[in-house]
């Protein structure tokens, strides 16, 4: 069984097989609409599949929310170079734990999405880059891959056509930065996970400088449903420009945290009150991180909002990777800001100076604040430093560190001022981190 009970308010499209006996096996998959989308795809032209994806309004589930059909159309299919399908299964944005379930309970759905991608761009090889900590998922995916070979879904000249496709898993070894697409490709090539300057984008020059179709686990896992249902029906599940459903990873101060699948545009407060069973211990809501720790948090009064890419962008935040972290009235936002910065400082690859130095100095300033040694002009300095990191790095890690910091310091300035007024706090050695 998955880790939490399903909720009646969910719309289970890509998680519908979760909880079936042996849900990861190919037999269960085949008995439940598995590989039907592939059959359909093989009878379509690549352009028709891309059009279907465009109509579906499926957008990237990894964080940026880029329209999937458009991304697929960028891969130069006539290039003489070999082409690759790459799955980003390096799930490590704090608050996010959905790709884990998609691979654990429905690995064939992911493989089917990859196969459709391979057929569209003409790739013969695909890889699943799985974070090193998820060792058991490498075993599950390897088993699923073996089953797919045994049943003729992977291999040479499949289904009596020229379609040839091989898939392997690949492991990372502990680096948040490798979830960023270009750093992931560097890491895949056996190098330090340092981002590449773009353009060229991975669609044109990805793995081994060849055209590469790179998407998140959840995005690939959604593709079979799009083809099975048809683009318009899939789009219809969500709201305009935000098609389908997505997995929300609910964590923090709610009664029933868990991973839930909801249509795009589902109201945030219903997530908290219905899926989450309300606030823990009857406390009041203080803030919500909508989609992973890099997303600017929303104050309680801003949380009456539909969960889709555009509504959250309008509220100057992001739907991100679906990692929704709920905080109650007792949460110390200064310490939250420090914890977030400690993470990004630890994970900055050090390649771009604004990120390497910015995260380091922000961590120092925030640590000083938490110790009660903050200076009055630190509040302004933290904001200035963070704003100066925005848009000045090769990859979005610098922005990811700066955005939540700017939001916290603007929205909870009073808490920083209270720390100033309180003065020095006894420093607890065990809480002094590296």
């Amino acid at each position, binding site marked *: 069984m998955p880790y939490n009970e399903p909720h009646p308010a969910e719309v289970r499209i890509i998680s519908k097989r979760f909880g079936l006996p042996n849900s990861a096996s190919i037999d269960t998959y085949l008995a439940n609409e598995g590989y039907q989308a592939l059959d359909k795809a093989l009878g379509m032209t690549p352009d028709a599949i891309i059009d279907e994806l465009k109509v579906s309004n499926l957008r990237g589930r990894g964080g940026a929310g880029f329209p999937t059909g458009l991304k697929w159309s960028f891969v130069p299919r006539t290039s003489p170079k070999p082409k690759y399908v790459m799955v980003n299964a390096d799930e490590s944005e704090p608050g996010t734990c959905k790709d884990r379930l998609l691979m654990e309970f429905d690995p064939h759905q992911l493989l089917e999405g990859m196969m459709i991608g391979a057929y569209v761009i003409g790739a013969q090889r695909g890889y699943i880059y799985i974070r090193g900590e998820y*060792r058991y998922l490498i075993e599950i995916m390897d088993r699923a891959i073996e089953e797919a070979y045994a049943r003729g879904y992977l291999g040479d000249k499949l289904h009596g056509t020229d379609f040839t496709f091989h898939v392997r898993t690949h492991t990372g*070894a*502990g680096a948040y930065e490798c979830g960023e697409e270009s750093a992931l490709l560097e890491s895949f090539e056996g*190098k*330090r996970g340092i981002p590449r300057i773009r353009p060229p984008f991975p669609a044109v020059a990805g793995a081994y400088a060849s055209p590469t179709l790179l998407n998140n686990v959840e995005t690939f896992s959604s593709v079979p449903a799009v083809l099975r249902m048809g683009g318009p029906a899939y789009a219809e599940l969500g709201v305009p420009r935000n098609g389908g459903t997505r997995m929300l990873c609910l964590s923090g101060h709610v009664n029933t945290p868990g991973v839930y699948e909801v249509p795009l545009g589902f109201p945030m407060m219903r997530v908290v009150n219905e899926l989450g069973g309300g606030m823990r211990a009857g406390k009041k809501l203080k803030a919500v991180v909508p989609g992973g*720790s890099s997303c600017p948090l929303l104050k309680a009064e801003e949380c009456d909002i539909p969960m889709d890419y555009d509504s959250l962008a309008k509220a100057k935040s992001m739907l991100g990777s679906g*990692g929704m972290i709920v905080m109650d009235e007792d949460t110390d936002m200064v310490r*939250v800001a420090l914890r977030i910065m400690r993470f990004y400082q630890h994970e900055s690859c050090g390649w771009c100076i604004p990120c390497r130095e910015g995260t380091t100095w922000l961590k120092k300033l925030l640590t000083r604040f938490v110790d009660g040694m903050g200076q009055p002009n630190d509040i302004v300095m933290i904001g200035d430093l963070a704003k100066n990191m925005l848009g000045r790095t090769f990859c979005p890690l610098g922005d990811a560190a700066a955005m939540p910091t700017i939001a916290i310091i603007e929205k909870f300035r009073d808490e920083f001022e209270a720390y100033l007024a309180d003065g020095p706090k006894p420093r607890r050695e065990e809480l002094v981190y590296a």
Partner: protein
Amino acid sequence: MTLSPALEAKFQKLLTNYPEGRQRSAMIPMLLFAQDEIGSVTPELIQEVAKRIGTQPLQVEEVMTYYSMLHAKPWGKYHVQICTNVSCMLTGGEQLWEHACEKLGIGHRQATPDGLISLEEVECIGACSWAPAIQVNYDFHHKVTPEKLDQLLDSLRTHAV
């Protein structure tokens, strides 16, 4: 260096996973799978991996030092990783961390004198909805309380005996 038959087979398979001439891609998987068996990334292992994938040992070393899961010194037999990132912090991850440090008398990236248990404060391990979470080697433990942690640490000791 001689590898165990299982690791040798794994290395052979890894080399065939990537297109001809792209064997450097096998570097990180080789290091991680070998480390699981050997206990750390030793100088001999670096030499061996470099030889297999056709790079200089220095290139392997350069990559190895980037990744937090790869380590040159052995950790404890049981490597206890406690997440204190935001979701875990909100639900008691920091208390678990303090509790473990106190109980074991060790700190971040340190091991007990008998080499049985090592501790590491880790960043998000992808168990946010079942926080606070910890990993012992590769095994996840969800919704951990200080009591559950005590039981777990005790059971590691019993296992070892």
